[in-house]
């Protein structure tokens, strides 16, 4: 039992750190520092740089472009990215869809879709939730009927509505869960379709979230024609793909390295901000206690994740621990948002989105903290709400 990094690991850390320092785009860094909303090209620029290096999809099997890193190296990589405040790689293609394609897809699908995902050329979005199907995802209604087209080929005609489609406004393609058999049990009649978002009949409509941002969308599908070869896995067995994808969606979700960086930021703010007594806020006994408790809980999460990683490396697959990591990881992210907002006092209130950036109101670090707090409430809701995660643990781990 030890925490020692091997000389190879230490060398890898040096390499990762140097690569980020030399290659992270300055323009992107500036926009982040100014707190500007990022556009499509901003999101993809870092992805494409990593793709050239061969580091855009570390967890994939080597044959499709994975790095073959050890769990320790993956851990180091996530630490170094957080340390340098890089943006993350969008999860929809690399982390969510790709494992479904390389696990369940045909050879043609692998060849057609994986390179675009890996290289950051194609933007994917997720069509899972519906207005009537949230936690009870299997009750989804979006309908796909199989028809023979005028060209003699087989198509699905898709009708329905998807919602909470994150960053769908930028998407080239989407992966959708649709109902292909309305008469069987809910889980049994679902298929997994890949849909070109430029297909006629698709409308992406903005949902403005409570902090004022445009992150999620409604997607309306009106007689959308999808070639049958864009179905992954068997007809009516899409639920198998969906479950596999959700497990992957959860595994990176602890966000330990990012939360460590967030905690540093809270400490920096609380060193500058004054307490009622006149000293640094961080010396206020009540505030200080909350910081200490958060730091301890983050340490517990980190070591639970390390234990999970160690289990993986000695051959045990990513188990239901990912549900624990999701619950604790998101709770900690939310507590960080709370503390940061609390720390800035009065300057949590100004809403500067419409004034443009550099409004010069209050300290720079206060800008956007209220937005982060409000937006951050999503984390305990998405990816299977934290209550659903508890159901999963109760059933899968405790055998209830």
């Amino acid at each position, binding site marked *: 039992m030890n925490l020692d990094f091997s000389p190879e690991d230490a060398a890898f850390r040096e390499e990762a750190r140097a690569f980020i320092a030399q290659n992270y785009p300055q323009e992107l860094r500036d926009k982040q520092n100014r707190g500007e909303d990022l556009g499509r090209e901003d999101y993809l620029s870092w992805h494409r740089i990593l793709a050239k290096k061969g580091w855009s999809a570390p967890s994939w099997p080597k044959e499709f472009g994975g790095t073959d890193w050890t769990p320790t190296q993956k851990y180091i990589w996530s630490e170094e990215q957080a340390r340098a405040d890089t943006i993350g790689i969008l999860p929809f293609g690399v982390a969510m869809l790709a494992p479904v394609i390389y696990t369940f897809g045909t050879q043609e699908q692998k060849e057609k879709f994986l390179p675009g995902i890996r290289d950051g050329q194609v933007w994917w979005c997720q069509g899972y939730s519906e207005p009537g199907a949230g936690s009870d995802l299997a009750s989804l209604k979006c309908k796909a009927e199989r028809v023979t087209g005028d060209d003699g080929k087989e198509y699905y005609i898709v009708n329905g509505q998807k919602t909470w489609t994150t960053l769908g406004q930028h998407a080239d393609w989407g992966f959708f869960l649709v109902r292909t058999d309305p008469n069987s049990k809910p889980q049994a009649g679902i298929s997994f379709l890949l849909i070109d978002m430029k297909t006629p009949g698709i409308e992406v409509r903005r949902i403005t979230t409570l902090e004022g941002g445009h992150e999620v969308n409604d997607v309306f599908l009106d007689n959308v024609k999808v070639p049958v070869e864009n179905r992954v896995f068997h007809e009516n067995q899409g639920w198998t793909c969906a479950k596999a994808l959700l497990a992957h969606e959860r595994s990176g979700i602890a966000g330990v390295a990012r939360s460590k960086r967030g905690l540093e930021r809270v400490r920096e703010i609380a060193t500058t901000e004054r307490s009622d007594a006149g000293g640094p806020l961080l010396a206020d006994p009540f505030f*200080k206690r909350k910081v*200490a408790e958060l730091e*301890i809980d983050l340490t517990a999460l980190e070591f*639970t994740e390390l234990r999970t990683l160690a289990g993986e490396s000695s051959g045990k697959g990513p188990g239901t*621990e990912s549900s624990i990591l999701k619950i604790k990881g998101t709770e900690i992210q939310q507590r960080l948002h709370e503390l940061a907002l609390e720390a800035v006092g009065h300057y949590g209130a100004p809403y500067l989105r419409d004034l443009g950036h550099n409004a010069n109101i209050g300290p720079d670090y206060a800008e956007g903290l209220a937005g982060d707090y409000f937006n951050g409430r999503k984390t305990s809701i998405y990816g299977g709400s934290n209550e659903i995660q508890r159901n999963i643990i109760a059933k899968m781990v405790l055998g209830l």
Partner: protein
Amino acid sequence: MDFSFTEEQSMLRDTVASYLADNYSFEQRRDALRAEPGWRPAVWKAFAEELGILGAPFSEELGGLGGGSTDNMVIMEELGKSLVVEPYLGTVVIGGGFLKHSGYAGAADMIASIIGGETIIAFAYAEPQARYTWQDLKTTAKKDGAGYVLNGHKAVVIGAPYATHLIVTARTGGGQRDAQGVSVFIVPKSAKGVTTRDYPTVDGFRASEVTFENVALGADALIGSEGAALPLVEKVIDEAIVATCAEACGVFRRLHEGTLEYTKQRKQFGQPISQFQVLQHRMVDMFIQLEQSISMTYMADIKLADSDHERAKGASAAKVQIGKAAKFIGQNAIQLHGGMGMTDEMAIGHYFKRATMIENAFGSTDHHLARYEGLSLGKAA
């Protein structure tokens, strides 16, 4: 990075578990605690001779098994699962810790006698006025020729009724709460002037109020350097904390498993109460607390080998997690057992009592939060 146990450690775990399964049932324990002397010397003899575990964390030159703190952790978790009262913590972890770390001249002989099961140690550090400030000492050791004269009152010395020796913190200089002037002595319990008032504790141990009245000690009673032993005391207590956290993990496992089993067989409203989602989520939260406690115990064990600062931070952080988990898991285990949880006849309440006493052992949750704050945020604030 490695979170696995060695083959020796896994064997150690199996050995202890299988011995306790045969010899330490809930009923066997209960009968022993009700009778005198309140513990089982035969069990201790088996630990020494049959299992050989009393040498687990000592080097092979000293006659031990060549392990370290991780071996203590493995053993303590198993002892926790069976609510063992025999004094492994006081004798091997704490007594052994002082002897190993201090460069004490008589250490080799003393450790040999610990491994053999003859020497049993209790740690007399707490005082009625001091709460969790280890250097707040009214007990004094005045220089007298080459030796010392010891006077004072030590509070709730766990395991003192079974002990052959006491390790005692006493002031050889400085003011009552000064860091300087703290010394450590090893005192035979049979020494003239040592009196004990023995009693049981709520979690099944025996303890004593210990009074020293002009106890004459030779120069060879001093462990560590005179007047400068506080860092040694802190190090050994941090090791004791990690061992206690491991014990707690064993206790928590039983509390959690016992609750799962009970809710699966207890029927109300025509179904097992484990079917109710509100109880399922409670048991999931208990499980998460257990897992986080295990993670923190491993973390703190690894940090024992680090700098004083990191070691202290790790031990306090772990103790905070264990303290909170003790309350959450313990109280909910009783709650989910309903009325049955309130009875003396069921094991669950006994695990709850041990968990609750662990909460305050070697410092409460608040104490360790404050200590952690000082270590992690002290400079920034």
